[in-house]
Structure formats: structure tokens, C-alpha cells
């Protein structure tokens, strides 16, 4: 459960991550709360909610294979969210008390996330339950709704699951954006980036499943992928260009564009992970023969780029000094 220490004192010695006010100095301070584990579960939550929604949105859920009767797409979604949730729980200081995370729905986005995970898994699970094939029979086929949401009850469940999936995709970004403590995070741009990244990653996942299932990929699907990636690029660049002098955010931007993370961020997140798949998506839309290959390439680029986006966003979370002396303002 330890993540690499990102800060060091003025002598270069690493500091323990359990304390913030440990340097007793007035310097911008890199957050050491959240790191690798969080980047993984942020990614998995985004994918989990996204794959479910993209499958339904593109009407591909029923066409891309099943496992024990349940659509493969939904299974991937459930697995991602379940694994992400387990990582989240394991990362808690007191995992056995995880149930308390549901307590503060009034203000805490983590509580919203916990509820949305639970609701999504429950409702989407119920939704697909009639389709469950168990040793040749469908024990729950008698339930009164249609798993693909074509009747009233099914549609209701599908809408509830869809809303929950939306929240699942969004809340990680909202957790970061809500407090004003870390200026780089404290912006609508972060949840928007995470949402767009999740959606683009999810489309890529669905396209790859299409490739595996040998389904033809439409030009529209490639356009969707390209547009989402391009939107992410806009959200990223826009955030990089605004409030650049804000204490704390300035240091974050330095880290992203000039400092320690410039190669990974500019090269792998902005370039290979966002701009390139956008470009390839448009190429794929135009050139039908390349779609399968481009889908697989975009999948690799978007997933790795999305994960690195989250990890680096966490790592450049910098608290500005608690006080800025009057002559430095």
C-alpha cells in the first residue's frame, strides 16, 4: 500500500507520506495522498461505466457475444467496476470499515461514487439477470423485464443503470475538482477530461470487441472515437492554457510541460494518447479497410494514455504555500 514518495525535503531526503505539514517550510507541496492505486481505480471506473453505456448507446450490447448468457460488454463493465471497487477498498486506511463510505452522500463525491458503484452493479446486474444462462437453462427468465431494455421495466432499470454508470464515470474527477485546495484539480476541466477520456477508452474497448467478434466497424463509430479523443484534447489544452499564473497550478503546469513529467505528459498523454487516436479515428472513418487495425491501435493508445492522464494528474496535484507573503503576490 505504499506509493513512491514524490516530495523530498530541502536536503533531498524523502519524506514520509503520512504527513503534509512536515517540512515546516513555505513551499508549494506535492500531494502525497493519492497515487498509483487511485489512478488504476479511476481508470477502471471510467471504463466500467463507459463500456456499459457505449454498448447500449451504439446498440451493440447484444451483438458482441455473451458469456453465460450475459453480454460480454456488460461482463467487462461489471468486472472493471468490481475490481476498481476492490482496489479502492484495499487502499483505505481501514478497509474493514469500507461500508462507512456510504455515509456522507450529502457532500462527499466519494460517497456518491460508492453509491453509484453499488447501484450500478445492483441495477445493471438485475437488468441482465433474466438473460443469465446457467447449465442450459435461464433460471431468471421469468423476471418481468427485458435485459436489453425494450419493455417498460427493463427500460427503467436500464435508465437507472445508465445514470449510475454516468456517475461512476464522473465522480473520480469530481472528487479532485470539488475542493479548492489543489488549484490544478479545482476545475470543471478535470471531470470533463476524465469523462471524455473514459468515453473514448470505452468506445475503443467496444471497437476491439467488435474486431474480436468479427463485426464490421462503421465509419460513424470511428468518428465517435475521433470526436471524443479530439474533445479530450481540447479539454486538456484548454486547461493548460487557463489560469496559468495561479499559485499551485503554475507549479503543476511546470511539472507537466517543463518538469519531471513533460515527456510522459506531452508525448504519451497529449500526443500518443489523445491527438494520435483522434487523428487515426478520422483516418479510419475515411478508410474502411484500416478500421480493424486502427481500432486496435487506438485501444492501446487510449487505454495507456487514459491511465497515464489520471496518474499524472494525481502526481502533479500541488498545494500552493498556505501563505504568500505580501511582497510576492
Amino acid at each position: 500500500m505504499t506509493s513512491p514518495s514524490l516530495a523530498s525535503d530541502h536536503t533531498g531526503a524523502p519524506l514520509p507520506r503520512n504527513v503534509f505539514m512536515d517540512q515546516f517550510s513555505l513551499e508549494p507541496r506535492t500531494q502525497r495522498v493519492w497515487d498509483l492505486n487511485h489512478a488504476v481505480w479511476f481508470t477502471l471506473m471510467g471504463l466500467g461505466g463507459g463500456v456499459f453505456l457505449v454498448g447500449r448507446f451504439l446498440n451493440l450490447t447484444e451483438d458482441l457475444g455473451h458469456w453465460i448468457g450475459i453480454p460480454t460488454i456488460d461482463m467487462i463493465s461489471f468486472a472493471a467496476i468490481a475490481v476498481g471497487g476492490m482496489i479502492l477498498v484495499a487502499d483505505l486506511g481501514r478497509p474493514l470499515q469500507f461500508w462507512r463510505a456510504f455515509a456522507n452522500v450529502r457532500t462527499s463525491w466519494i460517497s456518491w461514487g460508492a453509491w453509484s458503484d453499488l447501484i450500478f452493479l445492483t441495477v445493471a446486474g438485475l437488468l441482465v439477470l433474466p438473460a443469465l444462462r446457467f447449465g442450459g437453462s435461464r433460471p431468471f427468465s421469468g423476471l418481468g423485464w427485458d435485459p436489453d431494455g425494450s419493455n417498460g421495466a427493463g427500460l427503467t432499470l436500464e435508465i437507472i443503470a445508465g445514470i449510475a454508470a454516468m456517475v461512476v464515470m464522473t465522480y473520480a474527477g469530481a472528487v479532485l475538482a470539488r475542493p479548492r485546495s489543489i488549484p490544478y484539480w479545482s476545475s470543471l476541466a478535470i471531470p470533463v477530461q476524465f469523462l471524455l477520456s473514459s468515453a473514448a477508452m470505452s468506445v475503443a474497448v467496444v471497437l476491439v470487441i467488435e474486431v474480436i467478434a468479427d463485426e464490421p466497424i462503421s465509419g460513424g463509430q470511428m468518428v465517435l472515437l475521433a470526436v471524443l479523443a479530439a474533445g479530450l484534447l481540447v479539454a486538456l489544452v484548454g486547461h493548460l492554457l487557463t489560469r496559468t499564473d495561479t499559485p499551485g497550478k503554475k507549479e503543476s503546469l511546470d511539472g507537466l510541460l517543463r518538469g519531471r513529467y513533460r515527456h510522459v505528459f506531452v508525448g504519451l498523454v497529449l500526443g500518443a494518447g489523445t491527438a494520435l487516436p483522434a487523428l487515426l479515428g478520422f483516418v479510419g472513418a475515411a478508410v474502411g479497410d484500416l478500421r480493424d487495425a486502427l481500432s486496435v491501435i487506438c485501444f492501446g493508445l487510449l487505454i495507456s494514455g487514459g491511465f497515464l492522464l489520471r496518474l499524472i494528474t494525481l502526481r502533479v496535484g500541488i498545494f500552493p504555500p498556505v501563505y504568500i507573503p505580501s511582497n510576492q503576490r
Partner: protein
Amino acid sequence: MTRWGMVIDAERCVGCQACTVACKTENQSPHDAWYAPVIEWEAGVYPDATLNYLPTLCNHCEDAPCVTACPSGAIKRRDDGIVIADEDVCIGSRACMAACPYGAINFLENSGTASMPGSSVASQPSVPERYARQQHVPGAISKCTYCAHRIDYGIENGLEVGVHPLATPACVVTCPAECRIFGDLDNPDSNVSRYLEAKGPGEVLRPDAKTSPNTKYVGLP
């Protein structure tokens, strides 16, 4: 209503760290955690350089981002304004740590030890046990309570809060330069209100975070 607050006159501070240590012996914070450190920073260029001091602690915000972020409801703002964490309820999400602009929240690792390595004496809160949380919970966060146990003890025993040493936060009591003042910000006649009136209006740290702290500063460099 009572709204406990602290006024810190940074101009008076001599950087002796008495508050830092008095807090530790009073609250027995986990060994590497310091709830009330004095921050130092260099200013200027030789030969016109100096070292500045800033006493800090939890700001006990009116709009406390830690309370907002906490999923378990372990951190609460009391009616008297004190923001307090129940370590038994805390699940260790650390959302509060990321949300607090002041770095005022400390996390005790599961593998961590609550006591000072090498310490031979378990220091105790100076008022009876029932007023105070003494054992820190591994995997939970801990933070400054404005010495709420002393305040509660003082009120129950008719001691003047902010004046009587056992009814005043430990960092305030010890300060040789008397740069910390504790009292009721809602009472216009209180020591804190009068000090702010004389030297005010009082600044807050990280005003951009819009947290409305009840810890106010005057005489900031």
C-alpha cells in the same frame, strides 16, 4: 452562538516551536505528525535576508473542505465551530487530506506507530480522560481539535475558556511570545474580537480556497 476561534499575531512569533511541542505532548499526535508547527521561510537576498515564521494549525473552517470531502462523516463541524475528527469512524480514504488547503490533516499508516520512537513517557491530555481521545487509530487520520477536550472540560467546570490554562488550547498556553489568542469570535467583547478590532481586521491563509477559517492572522509579513 459561540464560535471558537484563534487569532495568531505572526509579528510576535519568535519561532521557538513551543506550540509545536506543547501540542504534541497534549494530543500525543502520531510520532511524525505535528498538528501545530511553526512554518519558516527565507526572504530576501544576502545581506538583506531574513527568516520568517508562521505559526499554523487546523484553521477550523466554517466551510471546511475536509468535512465536505469525508465520505464516512468522521469529520464534523461542531456547533461551536470546532472541526473534529472521530478516528473510530474514519475509514482512511484520505479525501480530507487532499481537500484541506492547509495540510492540517495527518494519516497514521496501518504499519505506523502512534507513539514517538524512543519516547519513554506516554504524555496525556491535561484534563481527565473522558474529555479526550488519547489513542490514535492506525489507518485513520488525525488532526488538531483546538484542544476541544480542554474547552469542554473548562465549560463543564466553570473555567474561563481562553484564559484558564486547562481551558485553553495547549499551543496558546505555552507561547512565550503570546502570539496566539483563543476565544469566541461571535462575542464582540471576547479577547479575540477585541484583538482583531485593535489590530485587525485579520487575514486568513489561502483565501482563494474560500474556506472561511476561524483561525485568523494579524501581523503577517
